[in-house]
């Protein structure tokens, strides 16, 4: 069983974590008209990189949302970034 680092709880079993999507996507500005292509890009297109990836994950038991950097081939964890502004 692989363990992932939760910024709040520390190392926990991978089953406790939920993959939310690739990091860095910006939701279209809905105060203006958004084209179908831009919506499709935001909703569906994935980098799906083979190698180093930067992704948004949630640790379900404590609901901490954070960024995980890992290798999508070796599955090694490369780093973790907090998203919360008031760091505990």
């Amino acid at each position, binding site marked *: *069983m*692989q363990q992932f680092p939760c910024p709040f709880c520390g190392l926990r*079993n*991978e*089953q406790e*974590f*939920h*993959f939310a999507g690739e990091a860095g996507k910006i939701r279209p500005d809905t105060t203006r008209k958004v084209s*179908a*292509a831009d919506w*499709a890009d935001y*909703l*569906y*297109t*994935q*980098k*799906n*990189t*083979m190698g180093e*990836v930067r*992704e948004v994950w949630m640790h379900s038991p404590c609901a901490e949302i954070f960024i995980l950097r890992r290798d*999508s*081939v*070796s*599955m090694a964890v490369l780093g973790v970034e907090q998203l919360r502004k008031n760091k505990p």
Partner: protein
Amino acid sequence: MTYSAFSLLREALRNHTGWKPAWRSPKPRAEYDVIIIGGGGHGLATAYYLAKNHNVGRIAVLEKGWLGGGNTGRNTTVIRSNYFYPESVALYELSMKLYEGLSRDLNYNVMFSQRGMLILAHSQPEMEIAARTVNAMRLNGVDADLLGPEDVRKRAPVLNFRDDARYPIHGAVFQGRAGTGRHDAVAWGYARGADQRGVDIIQNCEVLDVIVEGGVCKGVETSKGTIRAGRIGAAVAGHSSALAQMAGVSLPIQSYALQAFVSEPLKPVIDTVAFSPSAGTYFSQSDKGGLVIGGGLDRVPSYGQRGNLPMQEAVLSGLIEMAPAVAKVKLLRHWAGIVDVTPDSSPVIGPSGVDGLFLNCGWGTGGFKAIPAGGYLFAHLLATGTHHAISRPFDLDRFRSGYLVDEGAASGIAH
């Protein structure tokens, strides 16, 4: 060489000294009319139907490893067309019909065994959804039966009919024409048929880059040198995003590992395919006696072609719930393939967005059953540059138009 009872007898009499390799191993030419990247089932079937049904000149299949070494050799060999939407049924039923004649067409025994498939329903509300599925399948012209618990018990007495079952069996959706095939034979049969029609099948030839000149795809850089082509088709399953990236295209695909398991050989315990959506597990028994077991996707996106313990525990727990009698059976092997999952669990067949480059991908966990149709339709696209009516709904443009074929939600089928 045609395989027949006569050729078998002739070779038996001369001590099997006359068998020839089933396909050549040619050196790649500098240029082809059509290149297909990926020597799995879909790529080889595409080459076969291109050579058989269309007049396109020189064709090559480029495979980075060996034929059928990716997901074609890693699946659980189930063939079925029990889908919900008319678009999906047209696609998978074309595949089923081609499978039904495939051994004869290829002169190669793909061992398609139409032993039927049960999708179990474990409550009264699930039985109502099962009835809806059966009605949808029949409206789409596909065979389907709604079975009650006694009918299920007659077909598969090894399933869990105990009073204390966590998921009691109320009935099932049964497709009698579904079944299993010999996955390697599908790849090898198509390879042999394509080779006989002049297709160059080049193994150990990895595509390292895609050549795009003036916005048009003109060829590929490979581990065996530059190969140019008029049209290029990619049928590379879980690695589709990585390949498309070489041409500057991003796809609506996320790659995940999908695991499968085979047990030690047993005496026959089940002669159909049984799937329990609640248990998250399905299984059948191979002709050799091994239980062939599958389940859902891993939850962590991955390109690592290997199994892991959390999903193993989930799938095997489901198996023991489905058939407690096999709890002590030992596993023989356990592996994973990388599958390309789309947002609507339906495949992508169509132009990539770069002229000259076409895609056959996004089959997710259900690519094996679709090999003949995927090859047939992709060959049509590569030969004519336009869609066959059956592949039209599966173009990439559906993600912009919003016309998704959302099978994952509609049919409740693990893909």
